[in-house]
């Protein structure tokens, strides 16, 4: 039986319309209402709000903390991309190529942080960093390196770098699995051919593995960038609350502080719009730089 066009479109509508309605309610509506509120002076705790035009955007440009939050965000993006990709790639190659017996065990160990809530991870690491009772300072003391002990999260210079470690630790597992999937799909014959041609393990990695898993790498990097720009808020909020003296505020945590602690909801919405624009720009730029011809051997 041949389906009529009407039937075909009815079926398509049946599939798409509910999704689209959900999308409209849970994504488009908040997006546009965020944009709408960014033009108001509103405490976020009452009905009373006043249209102020672009005043919030002008304050945004004058706010001395905003540039810091942007720098902090991109610092986290850069360190996380580098840290996660290098470690995930290293572990993925090790677990697939080196024929380790315990590979499944390590896979579980590395993936474990991914099934934990980021809030739990944040709290856990707050204990690890605790200046008096924490594992890190006690460990340094045990090794006779007291002079390196610091109030990690309470130091204006060290607080932000200290957030990188838990972020990387929490992120590796997922990308490890993605890269392992990519590597497993590379046909063994390429490596055999490379070996016959006299390529070392290192050369095999650069010339065979890396180009063939490039699509996975690209997706991983984009994913890390987007989740960091939108989600670094959680780890900051749990571990430092943006302090000391704004040393760890990222755009998201500053948005939260403005909207829900200082009752400037309209201004918070303005910061939200800024995050959206910056994320879009970053992703576009990354797409441009990471495009590569698809490699096939």
């Amino acid at each position, binding site marked *: 039986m041949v389906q009529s066009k009407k039937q075909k479109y009815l079926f398509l509508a049946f599939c798409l319309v509910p999704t689209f309605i959900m999308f409209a309610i849970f994504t488009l509506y908040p997006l546009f209402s965020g944009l709408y509120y960014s033009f108001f002076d509103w405490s976020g705790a009452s009905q*009373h709000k006043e249209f102020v035009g672009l005043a919030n955007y002008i304050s945004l440009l004058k706010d001395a903390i905003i540039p810091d939050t942007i720098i902090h965000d991109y610092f986290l993006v850069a360190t996380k991309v580098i840290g996660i990709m290098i470690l995930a790639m290293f572990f993925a190659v090790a677990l697939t190529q080196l024929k380790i017996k315990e590979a499944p065990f390590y896979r579980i160990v590395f993936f474990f942080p991914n099934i934990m809530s980021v809030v739990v991870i944040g709290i856990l690491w707050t204990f690890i960093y605790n200046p008096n009772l924490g594992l890190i300072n006690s460990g340094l003391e045990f090794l006779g390196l007291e002079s390196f002990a610091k109030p990690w*999260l309470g130091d204006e210079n060290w607080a932000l770098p200290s957030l990188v470690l838990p972020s990387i630790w929490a992120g590796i597992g997922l990308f490890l699995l993605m890269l392992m999937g990519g590597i497993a799909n590379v046909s063994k014959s390429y490596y055999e051919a490379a070996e016959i041609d006299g390529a070392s393990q290192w050369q095999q990695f650069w010339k065979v593995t890396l180009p063939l898993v490039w699509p996975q790498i690209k997706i991983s990097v984009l994913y890390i960038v987007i989740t960091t720009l939108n989600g670094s808020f959680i780890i900051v909020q749990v571990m430092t609350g943006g302090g000391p003296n704004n040393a760890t505020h990222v755009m998201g945590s500053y948005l939260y502080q403005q909207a829900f602690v200082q009752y400037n909801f309209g201004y918070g919405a303005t910061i939200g719009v800024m995050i959206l624009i910056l994320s879009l720009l970053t992703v576009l730029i990354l797409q441009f730089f990471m495009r590569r011809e698809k490699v096939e051997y």
Partner: protein
Amino acid sequence: MKGILKFRWILLFLAIFLVTLTVGCSSEDDASEEGTGNDSSEGAKEVEGEIAGDLEIQYFVGGYGDSWWKEVIADFQKEYPDVTIIEHAGPNINEEMRSRWVSNDPPDVVYIDGAGSSETQMVEDGQLMNLTDWVEGIELENGDKLVESFIVDPGKFDGEIYSLPLVFDTWGTWYDRALFEEKGYEVPTDFDSFMNAMAEIKKGEGIDPFVTSGQHPYYFLRGMLYPAFGAAGGDELLADLITGKEGAWTSDIVLETMKKVEKMQQEGMFDSGLGALNHTQSQMNFLLHKNAFIPVGFWLPNEMANDIPKGFDFGFIPSPMQDVGEPFAIVPDLRPLAIAENAENPKAAKAFVEFAFTREYAMSFSEHTGAIMNLTGVDLTANDKIPSYLTEANAMINDPEQVQIYEKPHPMSADLETPIGNALMSLMLGNMTAEEFVKEAEKAAENYRNSN
């Protein structure tokens, strides 16, 4: 055919989009009309009649626990059996109830305390009922007028009263009396003796003597600096600083006080890790004798009740930031009870507020919470259920030779407190000088003035 179908898709897209937007916008329009239609004085007029119907009470449950509330509400229920009481309570209740306030469907009675609540903001947003006239008529059980029986009078916004201060709390400095007695350390009486005591403890115990929460710099601001400013410049200085008056933060008197903080930092009195600590961690440090002094309010023993080591004996003094020869200074922190401007059952709400303000409940409040209700004429000394630090503090507070009470006009707005707290943390970590701090604070005050 294809063209028409495409056109249909676009139409469908637009229709759904418009529907979602109009649904969102129209609900807001309706609600804001209701909001503006209310007259603030209207609610204050008494309407005689039966007290019945639903009564919604929102109260924050923090360091004081909720047992006092349960008792009062149960008694109120007995007195007014026709009222159905709906409680909204918990440590996150301010966040949980926010959508109710935003959508103009607030509870009837609200106890304003804890994170996410701001009396100043609620008054600015017109959410609280004007109680100025009504409160005049309230009497306590023995016929005393309520307005004449407050320890600290209600905060006023443009001369009008929007809330009644229920809990009289005050920040001060805590120490372990048992440790001090055992080792013979002196309990400080002014800033100099405070520094001496800390130096002695630093040497004797090998610890950084002073701790506070670096994640919440307002603990130090409210617990140490407000009393210091009160002692140095009285109510006027406090009011100027809290309202961000021009030149107040850069005045000599403030700089002198901040020099004291700088001195504490330079002599290593602050816990080197305090920048990382949240309030429970700092309190835990204090209980574990990793530090000897901590500024917190009366709620500390209750909040940490499950973690107090054996033999630990809470001692409380007003924060000793004043010069030699001056009395201690305290700046009370009041937690008010208020009625929503748009309360659905204002009659029952008023009956409840009136019901809660009695000396009998003030006594039971101290028993339940270890803190004081804001009523005079409550004799705590005769009651052995009340902890000794409280009776002592109460006696001190009532002796003007020992302690001066200074009042702030209203709590500091978060828009001013946040940047000042940030700069303060930098000063306490040694990354800023007292001079740089006052400049930063003045800048924050200027921004605050401009934003209002």
